[in-house]
């Protein structure tokens, strides 16, 4: 490590430049430095490396993320009015490409009406929960759906307004993949029974799967897409949603 002779170890010299030594030890090193030019040189090298490293990452900043803040339920009447207007617009344009893009989701025509219903449920909900699935293990998927079912049932019994979002990314995407999942009927049924439940797929995972050469990824018709599952979860948490990972 070094080609000079002294009693002070490299570890201690490093601790010295990191300001990790007690005052007595510092004084000892300082007096050694005055006697040993080679050691002084070594200390300078260490400081230089430290400074180079620190400054080489000073300008590193995270890529921009679009976090859209929704104003939640300030005025439910306005929300309901807006929702019914959207339904009107939708019905009018039903045969055309859907003009509406939800604030966080891309939706197909078929999903649009249930999206409006979900937003209304969200406005009214006291309990908002996001489930996160990252596993392709069918046992976990089954457990997740069981948990969602029992939660929705319980809260309904308690008359507690609730919304649930199930977000899948990574390997969890298999739950939503048409021709891959073994839960298509169950998802269809759950989605049909509960307007306050939404299944969300991470677009980033889909892009990744497609670029891995899996061809076009087809999702169940009940599933809506969010740009990034992870961003969606962070946003939900910022909005005060509860988070459960399965």
């Amino acid at each position, binding site marked *: *490590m070094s080609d000079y002779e002294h009693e002070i*170890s*490299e*570890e201690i*010299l*490093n*601790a010295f430049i*990191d300001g*990790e030594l007690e005052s007595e030890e510092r004084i000892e090193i300082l007096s050694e430095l005055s006697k040993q030019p080679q050691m002084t040189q070594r200390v300078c*090298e*260490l400081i*230089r*490396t*430290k400074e*180079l*490293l*620190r*400054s*080489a*990452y000073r*300008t*590193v*900043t*995270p*890529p921009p*993320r679009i976090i859209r803040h929704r104003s939640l339920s300030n005025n439910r009447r306005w929300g309901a009015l807006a929702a019914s207007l959207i339904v009107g617009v939708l019905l009018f344009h039903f045969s055309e490409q859907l003009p509406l893009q939800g604030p966080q989701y891309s939706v197909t025509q078929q999903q649009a009406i249930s999206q409006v219903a979900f937003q209304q449920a969200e406005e009214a909900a006291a*309990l908002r*929960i996001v489930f*996160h699935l990252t596993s392709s293990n069918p046992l976990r998927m089954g457990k997740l759906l*069981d*948990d969602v079912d*029992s*939660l929705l049932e*319980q*809260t309904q019994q*308690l008359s*507690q307004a*609730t919304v649930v979002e199930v977000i899948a990314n990574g390997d969890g995407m298999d739950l939503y993949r048409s021709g891959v999942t073994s839960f298509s009927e169950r998802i269809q049924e759950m989605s049909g029974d509960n307007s306050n439940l939404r299944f969300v797929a991470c677009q980033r995972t889909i892009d990744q799967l497609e670029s891995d050469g899996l061809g076009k990824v087809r999702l169940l018709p009940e599933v809506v897409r969010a740009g990034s599952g*992870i*961003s969606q*979860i*962070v946003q939900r*948490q*910022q909005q*005060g949603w*509860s*988070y*459960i*990972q*399965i």
Partner: protein
Amino acid sequence: MESEEEPVEIIRLFSKSGTVRKRIVDSRERLFRVAYSWCHDRYQADDLCQETIITALEKVDQLRAEDALDAWMFRIMQNAYRKHFRKMKPQVDVESLEDHMEEEAPAERDIERAEEILQVRAGLAQLKESQRMIISLVDIEGVSYKEAADILEIPIGTVMSRLARARDALSRHIQQDAGQHQQKRKRSHLKVMK
């Protein structure tokens, strides 16, 4: 998750004060610098930060003292990194490092300075993972040895020896790279003169 405990349990679990949650979300930049220095891939680093933030929000009730928040989050991040991200470790090449720099502040576009930064980053990328992790925490984020020991879950003696080896190796890599660079420049100069 025990479905019998809901929904009261859920409400209780997520009732931590908003200020800590905000601090968690706001720590993204600091986390990112270190995450990037570990993997040298902007998107992977971004995912790593997001996962760290989510886990921290989820486990916020386990945080005992608010002033330990930063070290606690770095510990979460190193666990996530070891668990999920290390497998996907990309082959870092200088070209990709150069691409990343394009996205950074224009003040750093000065060519010589940019070269120096690239040499340091390429040098860091060549270190052993355990060395890279510790030197980033101490030098880039300025965490203390004690905090580094807590974050990486190693004894303080190991912090000291590993850090000393890391700095030594980094400094050698930087010098080596700088030497190669100079050679290259000399060669290209000769070419032009011909």
